[in-house]
């Protein structure tokens, strides 16, 4: 028997493969393809205090091996999520991690408070990194002090495990990682999207309504793997790695770099069955390599 189970931020998962926030809705769509209980965990769409309409279309642009998005956190608001989405998703045997986002410290605190003790919620992923929503012109996650303040605020209001989701749009990712660890984060998610832009050369206009957007997909994978490796050496808390994962090989790369779990994001669009294929592929690879426990892989990259 091969062990695929790991523990991240105190959340026990039967396998290390999750689905990344914003690419999996609240699970309903992909429940039409497979049994969601097969997943390690589900990180649901970014949730805010009030309902949000998001940005006008076009919200997507395709780029080589990736895509840019400027959805702008369209969501029904935390109360509707608690009332309609979490109870529905709770029918599955899978930890639900709610991704939250705010305009101010108070908003982050208030959403965390409302989600505290809600049946079925296993943890909070704090999005301090959405490139499409800014506070004073800056994402919260680009300045260590501000990132730490957000984490401290939600820690204060919630007994749930807190996962800080960091922005890759910074000079030194380890500085932010150390700041959120010191502020009490139980784990770190890496990476959110990279700020990018695409121009339609025929019309000479930006493709996205918001001009700039967040890049994700296989194109960002090397950046993500590098950041996971850097952060894994800088902090003691576990890391959930993401950024361009579409195959088991991709996922194993993240584990070797130091991630304890991984999430499939845009890969769901590439292949709606991608998360299952990643789980099956990891299992097959471990068998082939005669490795009994997936935890042996975590951080096992050889650097001599």
């Amino acid at each position, binding site marked *: 028997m091969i062990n695929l189970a790991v523990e991240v931020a105190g959340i026990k998962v039967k396998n290390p493969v999750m689905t990344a926030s914003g690419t999996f809705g609240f699970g309903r769509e992909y429940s039409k393809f497979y049994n969601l209980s097969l997943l390690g965990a589900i990180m649901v769409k970014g949730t805010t205090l009030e309902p949000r309409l998001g940005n006008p279309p076009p*919200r*997507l642009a*395709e780029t080589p091996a990736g*895509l840019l998005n400027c959805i702008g956190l*369209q969501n029904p608001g935390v109360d509707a999520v608690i009332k309609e989405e979490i109870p529905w998703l709770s029918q599955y045997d899978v930890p639900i991690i709610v991704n939250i986002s705010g305009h101010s410290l108070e908003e982050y605190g208030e959403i965390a408070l409302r989600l505290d003790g809600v049946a079925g919620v296993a943890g909070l992923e704090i999005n301090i990194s959405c490139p499409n929503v800014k506070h004073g012109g800056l994402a919260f996650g680009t300045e260590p002090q501000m990132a730490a303040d957000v984490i401290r605020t939600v820690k204060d209001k919630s007994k749930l495990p807190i996962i800080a989701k960091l922005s890759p749009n910074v000079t030194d990712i380890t500085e932010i990682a150390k700041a959120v660890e010191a502020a009490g984060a139980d784990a770190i998610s890496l990476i959110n999207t990279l700020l990018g832009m695409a121009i339609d050369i025929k019309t000479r206009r930006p493709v996205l309504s918001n001009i700039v957007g967040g890049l994700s*997909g296989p194109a960002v994978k090397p950046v993500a793997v590098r950041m996971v490796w850097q952060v894994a050496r800088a902090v003691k808390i576990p890391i959930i790695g993401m950024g361009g994962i579409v195959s088991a090989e991709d996922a194993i790369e993240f584990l070797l770099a130091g991630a304890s779990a991984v999430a499939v994001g845009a890969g769901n*669009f590439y292949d709606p069955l991608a998360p299952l294929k990643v789980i099956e592929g990891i299992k097959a690879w471990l068998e082939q390599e005669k490795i009994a426990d997936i935890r042996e892989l975590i951080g096992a990259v050889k650097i001599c």
Partner: protein
Amino acid sequence: MVRRGRDLLMVYSLKTRILENKKILPDFYEMVLSAPAIAAEAVPGQFLMVKTSPTLVPFLRRPISLSRINAEEGTITLVYQVVGSGTKLMTVMTPGSEIEVVGPLGKGFTWSVKDKVVAIVGGGCGIAPLVALTEELLKAGKEVYALLGAQSRDKLLSDKYFIELGAKVMIATDDGSFGRKGFVTQLLEEVINTTRLDQVYCCGPLPMTKAVVKLTKEALVPCQVSLEERMGCGVGACLGCVCKVRSEEGSLTYKKVCHDGPVFTSSEVIFDD
């Protein structure tokens, strides 16, 4: 309403076999797939997300409407226009090989037993999904006006199908190389002025759709329009493909073209100018 493009309990993600893939016009191809499970469930107006390459480029699947649905034979026909890298890659796929698709997706066209005389208005590659619709409407005993528009004769899709099926076909081309010179909306205006239409169905470029919505609104004829938007997932999860609609209470909101559409009633859609 009969045959609602319903909320599906299961969506298929399959490798399907290509039975045919041939050029039908200078820019257009027709691909026939063996996909019994999809053909058994699909309704006109729905679409597939098609994987156009085995590699990571292009990364996203392409939405292509079901042009014909043959449940008995278990086949689906796609008609696609070559506009960029994805559709170009589709042109070199050979019969006998496999192509990955997800579907059937979205909510299709609907019709009511009360409707007697209807018109379909199609432009460019928007004509493709109207073939399956016309087939169903005629089977349901409706009198169907098929108003088809294209830039020129060599860009006009499927007119022969509509004639074979038994629709009353009227054609307009921008350059007058075939049928009437002008826009398909002029044909619609004539039909509206001479016939009592119970329903209009529209699929085509945005300016055409806008004009059809305006005309049908003024004539008080109910109208369904199929919309297009850039898609990421095609299944309703990414919120990439939204369009602006009027909600039941009258406020403005976004709906997902892939999941709540692509077919909408014209009274709910809002066009920004």
